[in-house]
């Protein structure tokens, strides 16, 4: 079982990295590019849990460590491998 965790900067937080990436894409003539937000993607291997237990445990992991609630939002999906 695998948890795919996506951590992204909150909308209210300035994301200078995303902004710099957007500027570079514009410099490459991708005029269609609007805002870019840069976050993190984590893959967490899990064993011995039911799907429901995994949801609860990963939610807790995100709150306690994987994301900082002041600056980041998170979402995740649990997939069978």
């Amino acid at each position, binding site marked *: 079982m695998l948890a795919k965790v996506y951590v992204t*900067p909150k909308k*209210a*937080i*300035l994301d*200078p*990295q995303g902004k*710099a990436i957007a500027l570079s894409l514009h410099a490459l003539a991708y005029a269609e590019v609007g805002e870019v937000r840069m976050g993190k993607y984590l893959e967490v291997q899990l064993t011995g849990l039911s799907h429901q237990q995994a949801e609860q445990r990963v939610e807790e992991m995100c709150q306690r*460590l*994987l994301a*900082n609630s*002041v*600056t980041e939002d998170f979402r995740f999906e649990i997939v069978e491998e």
Partner: protein
Amino acid sequence: MKWGIVTFPGSNDDRDAWYCLEAVLGQEAVLLWHKDQDLQGVEAIVLPGGFSYGDYLRAGALARFSPIMHSVVDFANAGGPVLGVCNGFQILCESGLLPGALVRNRSLSFICEWVSIRVETTRTRFTSACSAGECLSIPIKHGEGCYVADTDTVQSLTDNDQIVFRYVNETGAAERAANPNGALHNIAGVTNPNGNVVGLMPHPEHAVEALLGGEDGRKLFTSVFI
């Protein structure tokens, strides 16, 4: 007075803080290893600058779970003076001892320069030897020093006199041009409601001798024992 300075894997200002306290200020100072829990009877603690755990995940995020941090949190909650400098400030925010967070500098550049900071409150354990509105010249060196917090948190920081330092220009004004990293309201340092835990991005331990460029940093330490 006996001070403890915590060494995390990746700390690199722990010995500078030790030198500042022992050699310059004549205090007794011990290095506390992050895997220990025994605070060795220290009366004040410094969480030094550096790159604890390589800044993996987020700056300060992993150091927060070091065994010594359980003791540091208990010490702080019991009213013990704790100073977090740079990475130490990031660790204090991650551990919940201080509100807010530090994110990447708005310029995306690592900044190493002397800045001027204004003392906003003298009620903390680390600013009682300063006068309100006094400006101190102290260096910064960081890539992730942009202080952020939500609107409610900033309001409560203001209402409870918890903003300790702001970046200012040569005339002491907290204008935008004097803000090196994009920090909200030019905030360079904050404290907890009790005033015993203080975190700041500038490095007072690097400003304790004329040979190093200035002595203004001494006041943060002398505040605790004079």
